[in-house]
């Protein structure tokens, strides 16, 4: 792009900053809300920083909620002591000590409430990790093996089968949903985590396509040289192609992790008991039971579900961006 005029540059930055605020602020708001007291989150107009209020009672400090300014006595407020007794006081605003104080205790409380006191947060996390880790291993390994068969070997019917494979990407999930449920029911897998990770071990059209494109860029002469040295196809795959393909394996692993971590429809279909819930469905279950009143706790639970995704993004930013970029350029 040519060097721009100052006004043009200014408007570009202005738009970028406006966009950045619009895109980033909701996440900031999630964290901000998650650290507030219920009263503060419900207060209008909303405030950004989490605050707590304290008064001195009998020489001791007690936390209070700031209820309302008294009518007819400007500067005086009614407060309620937060000790469960509901004791109300009326005193000048200046005697209330207000400090910025994030309520970190919202987090353990939200995690405890997510399971309704019956199932621990650790169970949900464990279930999610089982689905993610076993799924990632399966997806990377199976698709690499399958893609090798499509990319590096010549056999009768290969191209026709590959065309059919690509066509399966067109089939929408609702078409597969009902019979798949029947299949898993026959296998006795409903109510277990199996339907959520076992299929990953049997390939998926998208990953086969992604890896095949990459494998084809590796010069054929390298395979030929290995064949002359007496190496079989499995040796070539394992010793030569896989080590050269780490970038595409990383993309597939990352995408599958993200898919499995975020998946909602799968767990909704196949999981029946809370003990088997993944985080996504546990979060939704918590929300539908809490009825959307405890916003700070809901935001804390949501932030916990979001955090690992963001951490992984920062560690694997390049792989992410390149992976997304390549999926589009093949279109």
């Amino acid at each position, binding site marked *: 792009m040519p*060097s721009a005029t100052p006004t043009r540059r200014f408007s570009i930055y202005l738009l970028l900053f406006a966009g950045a605020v619009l895109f980033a602020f909701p*996440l900031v708001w999630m964290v901000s809300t998650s650290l507030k007291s219920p009263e503060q989150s419900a207060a209008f107009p909303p405030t950004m920083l989490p605050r707590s209020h304290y008064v001195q009672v009998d020489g001791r400090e007690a936390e209070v909620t700031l209820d309302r300014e008294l009518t007819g006595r400007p500067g005086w407020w009614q407060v309620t002591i937060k000790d469960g007794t509901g004791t109300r006081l009326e005193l000048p605003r200046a005697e209330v000590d207000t400090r910025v104080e994030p309520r970190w205790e919202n987090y353990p409380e939200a995690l405890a409430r997510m399971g309704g006191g019956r199932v621990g947060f650790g169970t949900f996390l464990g279930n999610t990790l089982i689905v993610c880790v076993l799924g990632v291993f399966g997806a990377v390994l199976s698709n690499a093996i399958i893609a090798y068969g*499509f990319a590096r070997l010549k056999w009768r019917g290969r191209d026709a089968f590959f065309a059919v494979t690509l066509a399966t990407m067109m089939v929408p999930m*609702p078409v*597969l949903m009902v019979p798949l449920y029947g299949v898993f029911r026959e296998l006795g897998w409903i109510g277990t985590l199996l339907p959520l990770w076992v299929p990953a071990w049997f390939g998926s059209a998208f990953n086969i396509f992604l890896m095949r494109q990459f494998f084809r860029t590796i010069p054929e002469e390298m395979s030929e040289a290995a064949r002359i040295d007496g190496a079989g196809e499995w040796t070539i795959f394992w010793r030569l192609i896989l080590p050269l393909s780490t970038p595409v394996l990383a993309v597939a692993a990352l995408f599958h992790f993200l898919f499995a971590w975020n998946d909602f429809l799968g767990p909704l279909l196949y999981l029946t008991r809370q003990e088997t819930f993944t985080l996504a469905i546990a979060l*939704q279950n918590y929300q539908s039971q809490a009825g959307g009143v405890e916003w700070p706790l809901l935001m804390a639970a949501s932030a916990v579900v979001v955090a690992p995704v*963001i951490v992984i*993004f920062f560690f694997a930013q390049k792989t992410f961006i390149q992976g*997304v970029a390549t999926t589009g350029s093949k279109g």
Partner: protein
Amino acid sequence: MNSADWKRLGSGLSFTGLWIIGFSVFTLYPVVASLYYSFCDYSVLQRPLWTGLENYRTLVADDVFWLSLRNTLYFAGAAVPLGTVVSLSLALLLNQDVKGRALFRTLFFLPSIVPLVASAMLWLWIFNGSGGLLNWVLGPVFALWGGTPPAWLGDPAWAKPALVLMSAWGAGHSMIIYLAGLQNVPRELYESAELDGAGSWAKFWHITLPVISPVIYFNVVMGIIGAMQVFTTAFVMTGGTDGNPARSTLFYALYLFSNAFYDLRMGYASAMAWILFMLIATLTWIATRVAARSVHYQD
């Protein structure tokens, strides 16, 4: 086929064997079975009973089916163009010579990988009619005209627009794809256009847009496929498969899901699934026809 051919075939099948199983069990069988069920009375608890076109006939007379279809087309018709404009604009901005590009790119991209359930919670809170962040910001704007901001998810007229707005928050994914496309536009094209005295708008219209048209086609098709199946956000934000308020967010996939798994009308749901499949295929075909006239593939 000679023995070498057989050997090659064996080796090819041994590598693709997992997929032959996966394809047969998790795609081919479900597709065939689903088509069969769509002509049956089927509840998963009993064997399917052939009823011919009965499901399809009932669907045509089902008002809720048509409502869910209208809601979905409304959503796709608004979310896909909005998403395209937002993601392409962001990509164009980032493609300028700006400082901190990586940081901006990260900020725009991040929301698109936030788990849908979590972003649904967050936007429920932001759209909250009384104490929500959005209406706090919009309140003064609406007050200028003496009005009040809408109740969003509480108002049948505004619930779909709310979900459309929220969907634009995930535009970062296609933004990255556009950005990759923009970086492939040959510089010489811009330079020779400048020699001919072309302004920025002319360059965008006559160079950038034609060169990235295959990427636009790809993103729009993906957008249509995704939007026609919208499920999770609506399920979480508007009361499961009820499509609150007043069925204004009862989308196709929600109605299909409740038929299949709550009412166990799985044959009926399968017929719905096949109509959706045909609809998506038709829309993709239309997009491809439009693309055939306006998309330029360089070689």
